[in-house]
């Protein structure tokens, strides 16, 4: 006798959807944390620039040259960089320091010292490899 039709009952789509969402949420968090690690490392790695004497507390710092990643001074910039939830399956690397945007994009008369865009570019370049590894 020929089979006219087959009915398959599968009632776990909601469960699968939730698991996939959770997995993607974990992946975006890991990528954002890697981004944070990279940008912190880049700031803490010395960039060429000019030596300056600063006060309160008295210290010598190397102010990064234009176009270079800013150098760390008191650690305020680095400590203000966080990973935050940015909605379902999305995470953001944020900069809390007020002078983060002026450093990244420059001011009217100060050239930029970008640190976030280079991080985003390096993350983007590695994305295919990561997604392959993280989804295994």
């Amino acid at each position, binding site marked *: 006798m020929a089979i006219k039709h087959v009915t398959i009952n599968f009632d776990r789509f909601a469960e699968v959807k939730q698991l996939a969402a959770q997995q993607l949420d974990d992946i975006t968090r890991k990528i954002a944390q890697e981004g944070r690690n990279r940008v912190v490392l880049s700031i803490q790695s010395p960039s060429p620039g000019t030596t300056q004497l600063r006060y309160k507390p008295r210290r010598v710092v190397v102010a990064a040259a*234009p*176009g270079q990643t800013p150098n760390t001074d008191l650690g305020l910039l680095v400590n203000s960089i966080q990973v935050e939830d940015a909605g379902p399956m999305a995470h953001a690397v944020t900069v809390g320091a007020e002078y983060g*945007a*002026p450093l*990244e*994009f*420059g*001011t*009217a*008369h*100060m*050239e*930029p010292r*970008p640190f976030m*865009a*280079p991080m*985003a*570019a390096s993350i983007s*370049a590695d994305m295919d490899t990561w997604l392959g590894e993280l989804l295994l």
Partner: protein
Amino acid sequence: MTVPILLFDQTLRNTVLADPAIHAAVSGQVYQDAAPVKAVPPYIIIAYNSPPRSIHDTQTGQMEAVYSVKAVVDVDVDGAARALEIAQLLYDRLHDTKPDMTAGGWDVYRCQHETVFRFLEQVDRKNYQHAGGLYTLGATQIVTVE
């Protein structure tokens, strides 16, 4: 392999200045990296935000770089919204375009808007509104077939 930084700089500058509305909005003031001390806002500043990187999965040379293109406005004279208006003009002019620029064996093949940004700069009791976007420029090396 040469890196087409100069071509990218010129492409953005020429493309922006070729737009009559933008040209009029900033009186032709488009600066690279920072404005001269005596420049009077509003003006546009173009600066690269991510060094050029090579795209390896093609046979010909291909490079991309991320630039910030922003308007700077004196809030007390023109209002903060003016910066956003000029930023919108920049977006309309640059996003998803193929600027017709060729130099030094490179051809610019795309300009793509990536994200927006805005912030207020306060210096010497003056308020400057910055507003603009990050744009990715891509160039491909011209291959001559003999």
